């Protein structure tokens, strides 16, 4: 396992996570650790339990057992929205945009601690709300511009193409000002040019101080952007290391290719 003394303080660390669906142990005593400021990869064959692990970390599915520490505090008892409020935002494997809201509204929704989202404030603090909306709008436009979606700001999100939806979803996650973003297959179903772009955005935002945990099947993506990679197979940890270590790990190759 990892040499904890060398790595900086982990922003996220989970140990002993378990989840069964009926008799199937989808996640069976899995652990993961994401170092502050890193881009950490999570790979594994189909059905290894990667997405389930994501769901357990963000508590979209409650774990049967296990601990999850985010920023040094246990979060496994918190509700998903509370975890998001603390700065851990997730995306979904198939991009989920709010179709009948504009691209801009998708972005604005993601802003945190909005005064205007409280029922009574709508009546008593209109000035403050308008100011917050202006600020959020500026920030949203900035992000949308950086990913080339600014021209689509007033279109319905449902009118976007698959790749654009991926971009919107990542941008929206960014809009929450998170400490950690969990990306579930950001490159799935995306054309090669856009994959490259997405990788560039991720590394750019990472240099700005954002930490990522990325599930991805595309090995080129994992190898080019990740600092560390965790491998999951049949719900268990198989290996952990730098991309180069993982590439040459015989157990990993076995799990992917068979004996």
């Amino acid at each position, binding site marked *: 396992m990892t040499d904890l003394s060398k790595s900086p303080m982990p922003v996220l660390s989970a140990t002993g996570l378990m989840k069964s669906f009926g008799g199937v142990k989808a996640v069976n005593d899995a652990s993961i650790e994401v170092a502050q400021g890193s881009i950490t990869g999570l790979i594994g064959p189909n059905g290894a339990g990667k997405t389930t692990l994501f769901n357990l970390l*963000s508590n*979209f599915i409650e774990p049967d057992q296990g601990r999850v520490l985010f920023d040094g505090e246990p979060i496994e008892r918190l*509700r*998903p*929205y*509370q975890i*998001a*409020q603390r700065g851990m*935002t*997730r*995306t*979904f494997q198939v991009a*989920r*945009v*709010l*179709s*009948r*809201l504009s691209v801009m*509204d998708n972005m*604005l*929704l*993601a802003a*945190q601690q*909005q*005064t*205007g*989202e*409280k*029922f009574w404030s*709508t009546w008593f603090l209109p000035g403050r*709300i308008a100011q*917050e*909306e202006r600020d959020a709008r500026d920030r949203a436009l900035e992000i949308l511009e950086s990913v080339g979606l600014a021209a689509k700001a007033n279109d*319905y999100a*449902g*009118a976007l193409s698959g790749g654009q939806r991926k971009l919107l979803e990542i941008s*929206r996650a960014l809009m*929450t000002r998170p400490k950690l973003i969990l990306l579930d297959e950001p490159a799935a179903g995306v054309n090669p040019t856009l994959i490259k772009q997405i990788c560039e955005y991720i590394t750019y935002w990472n240099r700005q101080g954002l930490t990522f945990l990325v599930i991805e099947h595309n090995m080129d993506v994992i190898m080019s952007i990740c600092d560390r990679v965790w491998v999951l197979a049949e719900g268990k940890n198989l290996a952990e290391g730098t991309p180069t270590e993982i590439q040459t790990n015989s157990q990993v190759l076995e799990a992917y290719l068979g004996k």
Partner: protein
Amino acid sequence: MFNYLFSFDTGIIGYLVFLITSVALYGLFSLGLNLQWGYTGLINFGHVAFMTVGAYSTTLLSLAGVPLLVAVPIGAMLAALLGLLMGFSTLRLREDYLAIVTIGVSELVRLIALNEGWLTKGAFGVQSFPLPLENFRPTVATRIGMVAVITAIFGLALWKLGRRFFHQIRGAKNWQKRIVAIGSGLLVLLGVRLWLVSAIALYNFRSSPAANGLLFVSLITVAIVFWALERLVKSPWGRVLKAIREDEEVAKALGKNVFAYKLQSLMLGGFIAGIAGAFFAWQLSTVYPTNFEPLVTFQAWIIMILGGAGNNAGTLLGAGIYWAYTALTRDLERLPIAADQVGALRIMVIGLILMVLMIWRPQGVLGNKDELTLGK
């Protein structure tokens, strides 16, 4: 039929005042449902339960001597409280379960009203309760003031409606343009007619104080509620509701307390329906448990779908269309068939209209077509 459009006969005006009040009260009722379903995506098949609570609370409290201005908010708050109870027990369920539970709750509330005679007077119903403004005898100046208020409301509504249709015409193809233009022209004329009728009725307030008073109060209430709802759904608060309607998992992932928002939506919609319940009671001037069968809920659904779910102006227009239809098909009673068959026929035809609408304009009269072509 032409009488409705051109006559200023007292009887016709009286009937039209009844119709306008009905539009206002059903509009109010459906606005509550529209907040829940049109904006939040909650399948509420028991909306009439809120109306029942509102109607009974208001009338029973006012019979006990509580002033109407206090009784109505209490009734509405009790309806909202019912929303809280319903929400706590069901909002964590999947949406189809919510539908089943809500319809059950509405029947439960009606059966309580029927059987708890000590409180609700059971099948005998509640009668001779105070009505708003029934003893009000306004001076000429006051009446002119009331007419001015009504004029402002109608003026604003027609202006907004006109602007909306203007936008639709600009985006439409040629033949659609003509239909929209003719339709909106007729609607504006109809609006002017209804304004004239309301103005005359209010000016001759003494001709029927209870009915005219109810007309005035209901129009003001629906205007205020409409304004408040428009403001809410355009606020960040409303944005969260719409996000939940679209995909509540996303809302959760972005840090929104979905359960709390659903609860607020259900309660506020219930509050509004509770107010509508008071108007319902006042218009009928008696309250029986049979007034609150599930059919009333589905009238609200028809109204909302006709006008366009997720659109407050559309919902009010839907109420107008529904009552125009009801008024126009009243003449069918002259046909040589039994009265209950006429009733069935009217409902069948409205079903047919809904089906045609779903094919030709599935988004409702004022709904936005673009929204339907979007992928999930």
